[in-house]
């Protein structure tokens, strides 16, 4: 495990050549078919979902889409989903439950979108509903944080049986920039905030939030995208095979307990 600071990892995650789900999905899933729309309002390109095979196993894939260039980012809103994105994710998760397919969530977002339309369509409710429904979804859910895990916008796809993170990925309740502006009224102190917030995969493993760290090539995933895709793929094949055979009551009890036990207090 390389000994980088949270800030250095953030720079790696923000590298414009860092692979995205547009690279990973074709590399990991065969015959992937994308499904559109939430059935209520529209289709959100910040989250793509669909079905395909992981090795021999049919799976449902739900993924947040970082663009690789400005054009793609405009389309996917820099991976900041609107409520209809989260509702599409829930629709596809329910479909997966019905047909007993494992759900694989690929998380990579600075956060849920903050805007008038997002508020009008209930960003808060959409995220809450996902937390609520994913908690008892009767099929295995594996979530992987690929780059940025931005607060509630990431958590809405990360109520799962097992959470993995790429080695340099970050997962945080608040953006370091946001924290800096609250703490010191100075968003340029992002770097200090980055370390204080304890947001690296290693930190999150110590808190019991992250279950598995997937190694990245030296210097970051962009240095060898295929190799990174292979590592994620191997992890997924293993995780899905471990969870597929778990009896549903046990699966749901364990999932509840995974989140139930997180917290630190005295009484």
């Amino acid at each position, binding site marked *: 495990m390389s000994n980088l600071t949270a800030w250095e990892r953030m720079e790696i995650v923000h590298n414009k050549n860092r692979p995205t789900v547009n690279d990973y999905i074709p590399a990991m899933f065969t015959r992937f078919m994308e499904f559109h729309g939430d059935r209520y309002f529209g289709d959100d390109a910040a989250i793509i979902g669909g079905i395909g095979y992981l090795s021999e196993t049919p799976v449902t894939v739900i993924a947040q889409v970082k663009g690789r260039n400005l054009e793609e980012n405009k389309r996917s809103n820099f991976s900041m989903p609107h409520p209809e994105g989260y509702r599409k994710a829930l629709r596809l998760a329910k479909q997966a439950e019905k047909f007993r397919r494992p759900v694989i969530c690929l998380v990579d977002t600075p956060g849920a979108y903050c805007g008038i339309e997002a508020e009008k369509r209930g960003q808060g409710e959409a995220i809450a509903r996902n937390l609520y429904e994913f908690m008892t979804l009767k099929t295995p859910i594996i979530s992987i944080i690929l780059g940025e895990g931005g607060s*509630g916008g990431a958590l809405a796809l990360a109520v799962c049986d097992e959470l993995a993170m790429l080695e340099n990925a970050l997962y945080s309740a608040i953006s370091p920039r946001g924290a800096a502006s609250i703490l010191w009224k100075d968003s340029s102190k992002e770097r200090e905030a980055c370390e204080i917030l304890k947001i690296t995969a290693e930190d*999150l493993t110590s808190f019991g939030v992250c279950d598995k760290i997937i190694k990245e090539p030296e210097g970051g995933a962009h240095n060898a995208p295929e190799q990174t895709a292979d590592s994620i793929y191997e992890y997924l094949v293993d995780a899905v095979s471990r969870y597929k055979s778990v009896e549903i009551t046990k699966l749901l009890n364990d999932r509840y307990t995974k989140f139930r036990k997180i917290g*630190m207090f005295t009484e």
Partner: protein
Amino acid sequence: MASIEDLFKVVKSRFTDDSHSAPASKDVSIPQDLLFKCPRCGGVVYNEEFVRAMKVCPKCNYHARLTWQERLELTADTGSFKEFDAEMRSLNPIGFPRYEDKIAKMQEACDTREAIVTGECTIRGYRCVIGIMDSHFMMASMGSVVGEKITRAFEYAAEKGLPVVMFASSGGARMQEGIISLMQMAKTSGAVKLHSDKGGLYIAVMTDPTTGGVTASFASLGDIVIAEPKVLIGFAGRRVIQDTIRQRLPDDFQSAEFQQDCGFVDMIVERGMMRKRLSNILKLHGFPKETTAR
């Protein structure tokens, strides 16, 4: 001598300060409780009149923030409240600088150990589990204690077949607990689901302000969602949205009325009617009346 504006400033700070500060400190020597300036309409009234009106602005009907003691007094039957987990206190899970000091200060200023009080009570004779968040305590942000208390309250209610009435108000996740605070969103939502799957009734009451991670978890998940008039309800902060879209937002944006129009609030209930409405809902769901109302 202090000018009349200065008096307003002091009063204003008690009700509009969104930072994590305590209610107006005790060392201010001028008569701070003389006047109330409404943060919504800017109207000024005698504090006495404002308090008599249950802290509702007589000019614009803004339902101002209450302490948990005030809320409990207005909601539960006298003497019926039994608190759960009164001694539970935050630790410092991510080793955040000076978090313990902040908590200690808040505990002294607010006469409570944390940002939520939970327990069991009757409302006009109808038994329920109740939770009251107090925005005076670190903006009622959700950390380990808030998450754990809510989770236990729902688990207890699920086990006993009791309904839950939850008065939400919060600035969102508690930054000082980092990722641990984010996980409380999943944890509390899971507990709401557990209670719901056992047929439990959950009434969420959104009060000023209901925002961020609390809006995006248990507060939005009531079978019935009630809001107080004119309160702030939303996911993202107003300033964050304004900075993103670079235009001024309409004044009623993220108000209770706006949320009702958008379809996320079942009804808006005046403070003076809340007890009656809650008890009527509990009655309609077939819960037995236990005692005579106060």
